[in-house]
């Protein structure tokens, strides 16, 4: 049923529809409302799950690891520093091939402290062996959350559902929440093939010598290739229930015949689509919304970029000393492609900076001026320090021993 809901509340209700048996989380902005919502559903008797209040994100991730290993469908959520504090356990969860769903309410990473949205947090753990699916709006956040449990349990890979903090989590809008019967028909009860049990003891997470480590890593990597099919089939099957899809791995819209495309990941896509629909772009443009960042759908990207002369890739995170992270992967996917497009990479909206619809036309116009392969597009040079000031100010020295004068 369609309701006017805050994104976080809708995600909490979607999680509850998946009947998790264990929820563990530690509060952090902008994720907190999701787990608060789940805590209320449990307290009100609407969800039969064990809510474990923990003292840190490290423990939150550890609790869901153990709970899922013991056969319980388990869920957690975090953001920013919380994701970083979890990172050791995130590797453990994926290496042990334990199905878990985590919502990352995407937020910038300190320092400097920012509570606002960008993608630095999930990018910081992109190599941890988690499937990462990005949501363009709150409807996709609801639908992807439900699909995530099935994808995770079928692939035995954990799934991180990436939802832009504030921009989606704190936005109230009409959202269709499916019926419990639809979710139950789509998502069978959780059965874990290696459930820890005292009646059939087994060990997990033991020391693996060089004799077998390579094979373990191969299996983990190979599982991601199969995950592409599971992501596509989950989206297709769920669309059979609700009549809408999330674009599978990558959504292609706009002017299909255009020679220029803009690729975005997450909620900026809505503003881009609005700019296209409102005629703000000033020329035909193909629009690409990247949903799956892990597995990285190189084949789908090569197909979606056929016939392009230029591809603008938006990044909401930064690898300092290198550039935008999404664009690196896109370039790698397109390498060696006959008549592949020029890739122009713009970081935009770092730390929650507003991304207005007018900015896309400026990006398109900048293509004529031979832009660098990477730049921060919405940089305001007036806010940079004046180098003359530093040179003129003598700074006191400090340390255990004062230098003699």
């Amino acid at each position: 049923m369609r309701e006017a809901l805050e994104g976080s509340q809708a995600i909490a209700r979607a999680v509850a529809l998946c009947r998790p048996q264990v929820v563990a989380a530690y509060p952090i902005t902008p994720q907190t409302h999701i787990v608060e919502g789940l805590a209320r559903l449990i307290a009100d008797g609407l969800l039969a799950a064990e809510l474990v209040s923990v003292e840190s994100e490290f423990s939150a991730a550890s609790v869901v690891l153990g709970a899922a290993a013991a056969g319980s469908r388990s869920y957690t959520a975090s953001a920013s520093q919380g994701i970083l504090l979890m990172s050791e356990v995130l590797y453990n969860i994926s290496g042990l091939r334990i199905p878990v769903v985590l919502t990352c309410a995407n937020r910038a990473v300190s320092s400097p402290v920012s509570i606002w949205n960008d993608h630095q947090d999930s990018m910081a753990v992109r190599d941890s062996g988690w499937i990462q699916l990005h949501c363009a709006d709150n409807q996709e956040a609801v639908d992807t959350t439900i699909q995530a449990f099935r994808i995770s349990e079928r692939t035995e890979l954990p799934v991180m559902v990436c939802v832009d903090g504030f921009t989606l989590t704190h936005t109230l809008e009409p959202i269709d929440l499916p019926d419990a019967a639809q979710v139950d028909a789509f998502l069978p009860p959780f059965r874990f093939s290696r459930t820890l049990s005292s009646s059939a003891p087994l060990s997990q997470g033991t020391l693996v010598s060089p004799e077998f480590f390579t094979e373990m890593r191969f299996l983990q990597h190979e599982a991601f290739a199969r995950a592409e099919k599971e992501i596509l089939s989950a989206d297709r099957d769920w669309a059979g229930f609700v009549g809408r899809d999330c674009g599978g791995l990558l959504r292609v819209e706009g002017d299909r015949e255009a020679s220029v495309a803009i690729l975005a990941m997450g909620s900026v896509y809505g503003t881009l689509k609005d700019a296209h629909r409102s005629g703000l772009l000033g020329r035909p443009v193909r629009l690409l919304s990247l949903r799956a960042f892990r597995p990285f759908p190189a084949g789908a990207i090569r197909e979606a970029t056929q016939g392009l002369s230029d591809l603008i890739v938006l990044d909401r995170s930064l690898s300092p000393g290198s550039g935008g992270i999404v664009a690196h992967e896109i370039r790698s996917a397109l390498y060696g492609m006959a008549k592949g497009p020029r890739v122009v990479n713009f970081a935009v909206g770092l730390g929650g900076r507003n991304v207005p619809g007018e900015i896309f036309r400026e990006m398109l116009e900048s293509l004529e001026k031979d832009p660098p392969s990477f730049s921060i597009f919405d940089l305001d040079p007036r806010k940079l320090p004046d180098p003359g000031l530093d040179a003129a100010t003598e700074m006191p020295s400090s340390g255990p021993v004062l230098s003699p004068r």
Partner: protein
Amino acid sequence: MVEIRIHGRGGQGNVLAAYLLATAAFLEGQFSQAFPSFGAERRGAPITAFVRIDGSPILRRSQITSPRYLVLADDGILRIPETLAGLSPEGAILVNSPRSPEELRKRLEVEGMTVGPAVRIETIPATRLAMEVLGRPIPNAPLLSAFLSLTGTLSTESLGRAFAGRFSGDLLQKNMSLVASGASLVAQNLWKEPIHA
């Protein structure tokens, strides 16, 4: 599309005000969107919330930089230059203030801030009303109902239904009476414009 920006201070319920307005629009069959922009949450700090209402699904998620309407939960907020930034030259401002619109215009001039001659300003003493009924300085109910009465964007009945979705019992009754009194303090449809312009 109607774009409304709400300015106030943390603790006044401004984010809730934006959510209530968007919920009322949804209940009336419109598409709507509401979201806040705040710093680290704390009482008293300036906060901004955004509301969009349209007849078709709303795709854009950028902040509202050129609103048609401003709703100010506190007349002290007028002194912050960002409050008036981007307001449409034909826009309108509803202020929670015991002062008259003329007095507020004069104060703005003294502060060196300008409001275009076509910008309309109305005030209602929403905090006083809220203190009388709720015993707390939460100006939402009278302020939102006065706004809807002035603009005719939505019915105050829909606002009442939005309140009923979040409150019950005595608190709901008190808010409903504030919805009625807020609407009665302003001239109905004074700022009326179609949503789908």
